[in-house]
């Protein structure tokens, strides 16, 4: 990806995560952004990916829903007392 050639739309869809993750070499990054500056289709595509990431975040289960099972608390108390623990 280091040639002076411009990036195609197809190529952009393959390297998008590298861009998001901030691991693209400066030159590639410049080519990536130059492509976005002139390609409405890819701007939309990048938006899609951002929306996937944003929406996935909404799937996080509430911490409150998960409760510590009683036997786990029992194990914690046993550990605290210094009782020998099973399975170790």
């Amino acid at each position: 990806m280091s040639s002076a050639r411009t990036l195609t739309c197809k190529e952009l869809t393959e390297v998008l995560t590298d861009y998001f993750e901030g691991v693209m070499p400066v030159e590639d990054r410049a080519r990536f952004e130059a492509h976005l500056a002139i390609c409405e289709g890819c701007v939309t595509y990048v938006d899609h990916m951002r929306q996937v990431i944003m929406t996935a975040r909404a799937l996080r289960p509430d911490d409150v829903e998960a409760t510590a099972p009683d036997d786990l608390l029992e194990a914690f108390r046993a550990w605290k007392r210094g009782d020998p623990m099973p399975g170790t």
Partner: protein
Amino acid sequence: MRSDAETLAALRKGDEQVFVELVRQHHALMLRVASRYVRSRTIAEEVVQETWLGVLNGLERFEGRASMKTWIFRILINRAITRAEREGRTVPFSSLGDDDAGEPSVDPDRFRPEGDRYPGGWKRFPEPLPEQRLLERETLAMIDAAIGELPERQQLVIVMRDIEGWSAEEVCDSLAISEANQRVLLHRARSKVRSCLESYLNPAAVLT
């Protein structure tokens, strides 16, 4: 949020409240991860249980070089692998066979062919997704299902990164994979979910 050092100190002192919070924070994801390795929900629950015992037993030795979260998940995965091997199952992360490496991120039919004036350019631009529908319950359920269909390693990575909000480093440390590998798995996973989301919300735009 409590820092790792604070959590550790509180646990070592036997602070039950802190332990309960820690379990709450990670329990759901631990179950999800363990379920990737073992056959049944019941066994996954046992693995998670064993992991917490392992965590308690290891507290005195934990040096805080990795984050607490990563350390807990490494214990979890080791237990899950041991358990899976005992069950005679093949273990997803022990094989390097990359699930569908090289599969394109977008259906190649949506791009102009070689020889076209703009090879590799969109035949038709993707269309914006209807913003107001993104967080609808049906859309979220669809995304959840799409993630559930992913190959195991992609699934774990997208769940940790995008649902749980972990850093790349934390995922690499927990799953013992390289950064490059983590990125490829994340990219494949996100690309597939995007594709499902687009087909669902903009069905007409997907037809070439």
